[in-house]
């Protein structure tokens, strides 16, 4: 059979990360006595160049054919050491790692205990490495196209980068227009660029780029397959407007029988729209959409004698017969850029967001100060009695962030700065207003942030340290009850308007994306990246990347940077044109398989099928694994009545020796 195993064991100090708690020399001495171990060494950083050279030299000089590295988690450095031993000429799958850092030295304090455990972990790894098999990774073609889900600034940027590099991009947006949250913003901190001015050109590009197929008002229904070959099914929702014919003139919206009756999503409900609408004047694509929940004809089947929109549309674009359309395509990589939800201020009832019209959120403030907003940029507010220009204005920060009581422990990162920006804009619009900001801390950490914060404070905007406990009405004023914690003074501050600097939350509908792409959540409930520092745009699913606020709160520069990062990572398989698929797939021993088909029914990837073979002159059916589809989970194996189907590298005969090695404690 195969040659006799000659094992080298390499125990890493990891500086003192391991050696402070584990006696690495004792572990190496112990390892030397294990069967088939030829050499055992320690080194300060095994993953470093000299550390890897140590292993490579031993392979060459001592003729080792198996390697055990006792160091950090294999999730960290398994690829590193696989590559190293491959370079030294042995099969990269003749490697086993003993996790003596994350799962030993870092979680135990007693040196004696930790050392004993490390020895056992090494013994288990040696037991397994002796019976490992050589494997070959396979390459399959990758589809040179990408799917980007969500067309806010993150999705648009990622799509443009990939498209500019020459690859096809399918950009899927749930709402009728691209642009996302950034389109709703007025100015952007700290430079005060007009948000629309910097965003709209990109929005137009995303729709017109020859390599981008924009699927707006559409949702991803299904994603199958794997890196290089994801099969995607997208539902294009019916707009009830012929996309090709609509000229975007807007006659229909003015003619609509229920014109300007419904709260505009884009204006945060402060403005009104018709049942047939364009979300905002600069929307891309500039095509009207009928909201099936508010259209009289679609909800009641009747709209006067005939629908007004149909009557006035000169292009004959209205089509109430339109149905959802399913689009299917294949891509090599997926970028998730689904964004965030603004915190729902009604979850902090003490601030009276639901009760008082002059308590508004930061997003509403954006629309209020925007010249394209519902008031044309004029800041007026209803104080419950009349529409006034507010003269006494209070901002409250950290609403829905840094708040354990509502389950959001994290900082939303943008509220400090957007509050400063909004205070500055209000100072411009209402020069004689008294503006104060109630804060817990001011976090002005980004480029130009501190300078901007300083500038805003010099504009006679008072920063008062304190977290308000309550807002209530007195006469036609609102009273903010708060303690100034720097002077320990309880205050009752009478104001005309309160702006709640609401934080960012994971999207309420993120579950669907998690199910589609097997994504996980971090403790803060945003999508989890593969590594917090070194793989910040990757996910646990190969070929799926994250961009923007779906991964955690971010400002626009960080979002764009991450989108560009995700785009460049996504382009790796597209540019190579090939992807390496796991070698650790299931394998059937056709001489013992009895063809019962249990494994076939279990496999979640339909990777197993029964095929007829000739076995010693008899026609029999046996299971056969399609290695391109198999992901190596191994669920089939315990179901096998004859132990014939086994995942490579995780065979029964490879795991049982590990169990035996761990069991010998007593």
């Amino acid at each position, binding site marked *: 059979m195969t040659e006799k195993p000659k094992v080298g064991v390499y125990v890493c100090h990891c500086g003192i990360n391991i050696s402070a708690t584990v006696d690495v020399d004792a572990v190496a001495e112990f390892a030397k006595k294990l069967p088939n171990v030829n050499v055992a060494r320690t080194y300060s950083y095994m993953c470093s160049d000299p550390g890897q050279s140590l292993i490579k030299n031993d392979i060459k000089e001592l003729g080792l054919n198996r390697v055990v590295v006792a160091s950090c988690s294999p*999730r960290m450095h398994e690829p590193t050491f696989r590559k190293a031993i491959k370079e030294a000429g042995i099969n990269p799958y003749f490697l086993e790692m003993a996790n003596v850092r*994350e799962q030993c030295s*870092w*979680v135990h304090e007693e040196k004696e205990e930790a050392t004993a455990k490390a020895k056992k972990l090494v013994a288990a790894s040696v037991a397994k490495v002796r019976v490992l098999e050589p494997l070959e990774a396979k390459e399959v073609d990758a589809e040179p196209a990408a799917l980007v889900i969500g067309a806010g600034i993150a999705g648009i940027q990622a799509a443009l980068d990939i498209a500019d590099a020459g690859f096809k991009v399918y950009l899927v947006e749930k709402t009728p227009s691209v642009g996302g949250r950034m389109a709703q913003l007025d100015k952007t901190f700290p430079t005060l660029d007009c948000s629309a001015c910097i965003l709209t050109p990109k929005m137009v590009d995303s729709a017109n780029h020859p390599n981008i197929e924009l699927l707006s008002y559409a949702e991803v229904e299904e994603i199958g397959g794997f890196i290089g070959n994801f099969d995607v099914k997208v539902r294009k929702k019916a707009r009830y407007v012929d996309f090709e014919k609509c000229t975007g003139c807007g006659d229909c919206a003015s003619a609509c029988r229920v014109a300007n009756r419904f709260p505009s999503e884009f204006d945060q409900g402060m403005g009104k729209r018709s049942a047939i609408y364009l979300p905002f004047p600069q929307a891309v694509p500039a095509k009207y959409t009928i909201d099936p929940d508010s259209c009289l004809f679609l909800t009641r089947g009747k709209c006067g004698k005939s629908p007004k929109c149909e009557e006035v549309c000169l292009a004959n674009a209205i089509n109430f017969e339109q149905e959802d359309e399913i689009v299917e395509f294949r891509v090599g990589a997926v970028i998730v850029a689904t964004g965030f939800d603004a915190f729902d201020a009604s979850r902090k009832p003490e601030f009276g967001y639901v009760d008082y019209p002059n308590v508004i959120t930061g997003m509403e403030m954006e629309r209020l100060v925007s010249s394209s907003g519902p008031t044309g940029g004029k800041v007026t507010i209803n104080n419950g009695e009349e529409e006034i220009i507010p003269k006494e204005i209070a901002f409250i920060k950290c609403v829905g962030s840094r708040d354990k009581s509502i389950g959001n422990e994290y900082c939303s990162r943008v509220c400090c700065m957007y509050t400063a920006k909004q205070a500055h804009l209000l100072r411009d619009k209402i020069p004689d207003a008294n503006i104060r900001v109630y804060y817990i801390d001011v976090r002005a950490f980004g480029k130009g942030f501190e300078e901007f914060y300083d500038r805003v404070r010099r504009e006679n905007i008072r920063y008062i340290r304190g977290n308000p406990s309550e807002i209530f009405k007195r006469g036609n004023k609102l009273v903010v009850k708060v303690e100034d914690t720097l002077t320990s003074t309880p205050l009752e501050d009478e104001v005309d308007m309160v702006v709640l600097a609401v934080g960012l939350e994971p999207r309420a509908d993120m579950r669907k994306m998690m199910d589609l792409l097997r994504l996980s959540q971090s403790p803060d409930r945003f999508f989890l990246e593969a590594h917090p520092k070194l793989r910040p745009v990757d996910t646990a699913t190969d070929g799926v990347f994250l961009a923007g606020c779906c991964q955690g709160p971010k400002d626009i520069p960080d979002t764009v940077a991450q989108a560009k990062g995700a785009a460049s990572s996504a382009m790796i398989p597209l540019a190579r044109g090939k992807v390496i698929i796991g070698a*650790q797939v299931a394998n059937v021993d056709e001489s013992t398989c009895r063809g019962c088909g249990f494994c076939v029914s279990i496999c979640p990837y339909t990777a197993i099928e029964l095929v007829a073979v000739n076995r010693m002159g008899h026609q029999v059916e046996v299971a056969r694994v399609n290695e391109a589809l198999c992901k190596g989970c191994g*669920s089939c194996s*315990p179901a096998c009545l004859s132990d014939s189907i086994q995942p490579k590298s995780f065979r029964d005969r490879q*795991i049982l020796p590990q*169990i035996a090695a761990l*069991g010998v404690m007593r």
Partner: protein
Amino acid sequence: MSDNYEPNIVAFLCNWCSYAGADLAGTSRMQYPANIQIIRVMCSGRVNPLFVMNALQQGADGVLISGCHIGDCHYMEGNFYARRRLGMLKELMEFIGVDSRRFHMSWVSASEGHKWKEVVEKTVEDAREAGPYEGFRRRRIDW
């Protein structure tokens, strides 16, 4: 049972959730008993119930199997199979007189370092209460 008895626990963790959660407990420097040794498998669905019996035969006093939360399996369905197979095993173990405190199943995600610590503490404590396992021990086999 002597006072200084320390149970020996073998744990099977799926690569994507629980193993990553255990790694996170490490990076967060959470402290938990050293009685537990982890074997990594790609999916909890890989864990053959016989592995559990085998571990008890080979010298373990307790066995823990941990996977992704139900519905969150990286391989879509693997942890459903694990739950059903090992649930069945648990009943069988009770039937043949193995203390059920020796056997635990848990669902720990990649972000739940704290939960992993709690699971380990509970598993070790239960196995300690159950005492040294003297049932179907096998003599040491040299693999």
